[in-house]
């Protein structure tokens, strides 16, 4: 059966994976659009940060709020989801050695998402949608703003269905036998979470769209918040599952790490499935209308099931790397495996930094601020951006960046341009984001609100005396943002230059950093039959 499609495949020289060419082209466009969205979001980010740094205070108020809207949408939705769509294609076709069942359907989904993203961006930048990322009613945007998001979400939903279909085809046509590889399993969990998320998104945005067009009288603000965060927070859990899968993947690609115990890692992913999406209640902790038991049960991710899952991964991924390194002979002391790790490889460094930033920064702040009572001191202060910039940026985005350094030579078969810069890029980005989030968190602890144009209150009736420490922290935010922005620019440049002008890698050529996956390809090779 598979023979009909044999001409559409090529075999990757490094990993031995069979790559379906139509899927590869789709992967390519998704990744390119993702990087463009990242760049737009990044430019917005630096402008916002330089405005919140009171000493600079760059933008006027209306542009500030407009750019906050654009930053949120482009980063949190468009960049992340386009990249994840590329990830879905990789996990379902290349890893399983399968063909993409319906490439035309794939292109249709991609175009839906692209049109949606462009429409929403036009509405934001023409000033028709100064409603911030959350678009809380009664703030009302142009109907096309909601339409753009709906189109994007429908495209993403179709792509998730396509992913599921690929899994079915892979089994049915014999491309794949046995259990799914852990990476595909993790992405599968992410896709299941995505179905929930996108349905919540539809349930929230469709009525709001109708309301914006005048067909509905009123949107209940409390109900909207419940629905919106079912989409907005759950979307971040997709990132989490995808990011953890990518950590496992990079561990394998860079040092040949094997999950120490498949049962342990897969069980942890299942805990995500059980417990993580209810965490949207984290946004409703100080809202009117919810009982204590509702809040305790939901914000605890169902008795901290998802937290236990993350703690398991936090152990099992470094343990896999340690085991692989010890097998190579780095057995001296507790940490030789770590010091002798391939730190010069941007993918490895990026992954390691991503784990550290996510674990020590994002995870602990999230679990702490998500406590029913502690949230009183955190809700809508800068502590929240301080938290999600170390999860979604220092964690997910950095992990995605690291993967790009493998995707470019492996999938796009281009030699990395600026490999010397790539070596330092994860470090620059990680340091910048860490400084920025630290600044945000401490400013938030001192009471500085998020999404606020002017904390000196120069045109308000009272001037709140924020302490000098708080002002210094906002300076730190600006400084960190500048460093992170430099890291982001280097990444975008390397990705764009390599994708369009990179030297083609001829067959059998070694990459500039040693790939370690070769032995694995021979040992546990995907079904060749």
């Amino acid at each position, binding site marked *: 059966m598979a023979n009909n499609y044999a001409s559409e495949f090529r075999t990757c020289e490094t990993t031995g994976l069979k790559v379906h060419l139509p899927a590869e082209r789709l992967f390519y466009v998704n990744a390119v659009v993702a990087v463009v969205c990242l760049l737009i979001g990044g430019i917005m980010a630096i402008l916002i940060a330089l405005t919140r740094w009171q000493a600079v205070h760059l933008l006027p108020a*209306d542009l500030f*709020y407009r750019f906050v809207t654009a930053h949120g949408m482009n980063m949190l939705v468009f960049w992340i989801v386009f990249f994840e769509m590329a990830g879905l294609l990789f996990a379902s076709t290349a*890893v399983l050695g399968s063909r993409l069942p319906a490439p035309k359907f794939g292109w249709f989904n991609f175009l839906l998402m692209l049109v949606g993203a462009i429409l929403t961006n036009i509405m934001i930048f023409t000033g028709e949608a*100064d409603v911030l990322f959350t678009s*809380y009613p*009664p*703030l009302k945007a142009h109907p096309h703003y909601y339409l753009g998001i709906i189109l994007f979400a429908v495209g993403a939903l179709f792509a998730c269905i396509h992913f599921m279909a690929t899994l079915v085809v892979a089994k049915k046509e014999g491309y794949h036998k*046995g*259990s799914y*590889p*852990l*990476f*595909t399993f993790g992405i599968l969990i992410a896709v299941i979470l995505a179905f929930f998320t996108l349905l919540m998104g539809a349930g929230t945005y469709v009525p709001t769209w109708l309301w914006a067009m005048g067909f509905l009288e009123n949107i209940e*603000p*409390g109900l909207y*918040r419940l629905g919106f965060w079912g989409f907005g927070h759950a979307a971040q859990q997709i990132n989490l599952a995808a990011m953890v*899968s990518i950590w*496992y*993947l990079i561990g394998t*690609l860079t040092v*040949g*790490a*094997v*999950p*120490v*115990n*498949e*049962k*342990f890692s897969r069980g942890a992913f299942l805990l995500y499935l059980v417990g993580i999406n209810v965490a949207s209640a984290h946004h409703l902790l100080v*809202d*009117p*209308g919810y009982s*204590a038991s509702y809040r*305790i049960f939901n914000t*605890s991710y169902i*008795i*901290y*099931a998802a937290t*236990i899952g993350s*703690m*398991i991964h936090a152990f*099992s991924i470094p343990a896999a790397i340690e085991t692989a390194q010890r097998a190579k002979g780095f057995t001296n002391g507790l940490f030789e495996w770590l010091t002798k790790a391939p730190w010069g490889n941007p993918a490895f460094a990026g992954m390691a930094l991503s784990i550290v930033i996510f674990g020590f920064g994002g995870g602990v702040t999230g679990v702490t601020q998500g*406590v029913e*009572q502690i949230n*009183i001191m955190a*809700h*809508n*202060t800068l502590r929240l951006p301080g938290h999600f910039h170390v999860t979604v940026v220092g964690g997910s985005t950095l992990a995605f960046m690291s993967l790009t350094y493998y995707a470019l030579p492996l999938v796009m078969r281009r030699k990395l341009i600026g490999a010397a810069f790539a070596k330092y890029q994860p470090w620059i980005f990680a340091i910048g984001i860490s400084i920025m989030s630290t600044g945000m968190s401490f400013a938030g602890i*001192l*009471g500085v*609100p*998020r*999404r606020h144009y*002017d904390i000196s209150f120069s*045109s*308000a*009736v*009272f001037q*709140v005396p924020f302490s000098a420490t708080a002002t210094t922290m906002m300076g730190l935010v600006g400084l960190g943002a500048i460093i992170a922005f430099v890291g982001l620019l280097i990444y975008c440049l390397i990705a764009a230059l390599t994708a369009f002008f990179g030297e083609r890698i001829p067959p059998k050529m070694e990459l500039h950093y040693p790939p370690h*996956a070769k032995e694995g390809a021979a040992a546990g090779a995907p079904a060749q039959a």
Partner: protein
Amino acid sequence: MSIFIPEKHWWKPLGPDEKLWFKICVATGLALFAMMPLWNLAGKQNPTHESYMVTPEQFNELTEKFVAENKVRDEVVKQKFGDAVIERRIPVVHPKPGVKDVYLRARAWEFYPILELDKGREYRVHMSSMDYQHGFSLQPQNINFQILAGHDLVVTMTPRESGNFYIICNEYCAIGHHTMIGKIIVKE
């Protein structure tokens, strides 16, 4: 290998370090979970507020009545509009002895009225919005609540320090959001 098919029988017992770590994980999860109900029972700071449905008109009436009955003076404040400076009078309200219910109206872009409270006395602070979503963020105490139109959020609050405190709106409420600020004065 995470990108290759695992061997057929991958359901294996955990190693000693994984077992120990898993025990730590589960114990942590249970301890974190226990904290919230325990604090609800024994702690003094809980967001287990009451809330009611109320229309903006009804809430406005309640606020005006509360202000008329308990107002002690006006505070004159100055606000900059570009180059112009205008003066505004905001009523300062000190609830009479026995009055426990206090009303705070949020509207784009003001908190109304200024509250004057006694230290150590328990109040039921009602908050609601007339229009957009607003945020109640009391500084420097850093107490934050969400204010929605149509909902009367009742927070039972006991001030523990005296002085001037400011309420910052920390939920985006259109272009004047950053000028929205209120005040609570706590007397000994």
